[in-house]
């Protein structure tokens, strides 16, 4: 029997709140965080985004950073979320703690701003390396003085879910006893235009699993979990356990999911296997549910293949937008909140089921007994990851 992996702290910053409490309040009141761009400078003023309404200088002030800091927006959001997670877990000594950060576009916000100015403006050159995810991780780790095992996972939209999975494996193998896992991504013109050029960006609010869904809306967020081995978690409040995980590749297309959701199916199946659970043990599924035509149909088919009887499910991307590399972490936090409060958060904007699969997500806040939650995150490159969180018995 491998070692259990306890979640002893979490922190979150998203378009529906700057901490756990605010996020929870928004979830139970059905208050989404989508709006038109105010801080992101883009010509696409008509496209709703899950934007955090704090400027970079507001965020830097909140962290007391020096004026010449080299924090990307993702690093600013990440540091704030991580602070909450560490306080929550009452961790002050970072000597042996590991850090696994999920990130996809790194400091693209800085790259796209300064790309044409590096030559003429030496002051911005400190952001030259910011384009790559490792740079953002460095800033966050440096802020806290986390010096040991620090790594970054970049598997597009499944990055943070993979970070949770790796953290659990590091603890189970005995390589680490404490590890911070999660992810951060900020909005950028790069990603907004990227998804828009794929013609899967919605001009309305996202309608996951709805027959009339028009595509995804991007968001920005950061969230982290503190994972600890049973020994280290002994005298702490345990928010839940990472009991299962599965990672598979769809091996179908660089961006689109296969028709029957093979990668998603395999990831969920592996997660159930590692958790030693049967499908009927799952009480709630926090679906990937991006609200694109392709994902929701493919994911629905994969869900039907796994679950003879469909458990309650919803996509909370209808609240936050799709936060890319951070999505797996914020949805891990929402899954753990569901366990803590024994409630299921609704899938907003749903009216009618996809005719083919007829799956109906939960559309109102529901109080119910929750022991095990499955959370899905799928991404470009066919990367599919499923996690299972379980309540302390």
């Amino acid at each position, binding site marked *: 029997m491998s070692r259990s992996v306890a979640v002893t702290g979490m922190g979150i910053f998203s378009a529906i709140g700057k901490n756990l409490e605010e996020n929870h309040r928004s979830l139970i009141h059905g208050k989404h965080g989508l709006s038109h761009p105010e801080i992101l400078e883009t010509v696409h003023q008509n496209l709703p985004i899950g934007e955090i309404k704090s400027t970079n200088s507001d965020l830097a002030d909140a962290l007391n950073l020096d004026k010449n800091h080299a924090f990307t927006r993702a690093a600013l959001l990440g540091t704030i979320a991580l602070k909450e997670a560490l306080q929550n877990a009452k961790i002050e000594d970072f000597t042996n703690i590991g850090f696994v950060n999920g990130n996809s576009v790194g400091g693209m916000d800085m790259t796209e701003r300064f790309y044409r100015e590096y030559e003429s403006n030496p002051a911005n050159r400190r952001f030259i390396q910011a384009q790559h995810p490792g740079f953002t991780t460095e800033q966050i780790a440096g802020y806290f003085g986390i010096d040991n095992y620090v790594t970054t996972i970049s598997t597009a939209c499944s990055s943070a879910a993979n970070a949770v999975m790796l953290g659990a494996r590091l603890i189970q193998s005995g390589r680490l006893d404490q590890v911070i896992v999660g992810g951060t991504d900020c909005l950028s013109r790069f990603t907004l235009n990227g998804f828009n*050029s794929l*013609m899967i960006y919605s001009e309305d609010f996202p309608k996951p699993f709805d027959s009339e869904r028009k595509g995804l809306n991007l968001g920005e967020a950061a969230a982290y979990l503190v994972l600890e081995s049973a020994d280290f978690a002994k005298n702490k409040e345990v928010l839940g356990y990472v009991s299962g995980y599965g990672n598979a590749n769809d091996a179908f297309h660089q961006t689109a999911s296969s028709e029957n959701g093979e990668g998603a199916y395999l990831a969920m199946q592996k997660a159930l296997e590692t958790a030693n659970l049967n499908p009927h043990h799952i009480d709630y599924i926090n679906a990937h549910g991006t609200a694109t035509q392709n994902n929701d149909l493919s994911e629905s088919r994969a869900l039907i293949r796994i679950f003879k009887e469909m458990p309650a499910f919803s996509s909370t991307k209808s609240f936050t937008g799709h936060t890319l590399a951070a999505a797996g972490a914020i949805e891990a936090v929402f899954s753990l909140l569901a366990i803590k409060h024994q409630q299921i958060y609704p899938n907003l904007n749903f009216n009618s089921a996809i005719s083919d699969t007829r799956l109906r997500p939960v559309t109102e806040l529901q109080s119910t007994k929750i022991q095990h939650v499955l959370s899905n995150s799928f991404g470009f490159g066919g990367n599919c990851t499923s996690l299972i969180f379980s309540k302390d018995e």
Partner: protein
Amino acid sequence: MPIMTDLHTELKASIIEQLNLEDMEVSDIENDEPLFGDGLGLDSIDALELIVLLEKDYGIKLTDPKKGREIFESINKMADFIEANRTK
């Protein structure tokens, strides 16, 4: 680049350039050959590239990517569609 006098030839040249079909020449593409699937072998990403090509070169804006599949069936179909809808 030689001046294109014929829309069909012009389309073939733009497709080869835009889709990076390095080893192909205009004469390799037949007017009625299917561009997708078993014919030339283009895929859904190419369809999105062609949608932008329509907008940029001919002022035709498609909002539903599904419509592209019909229009881009062959060079003939594409040329007919462009003749009927072009704004530049």
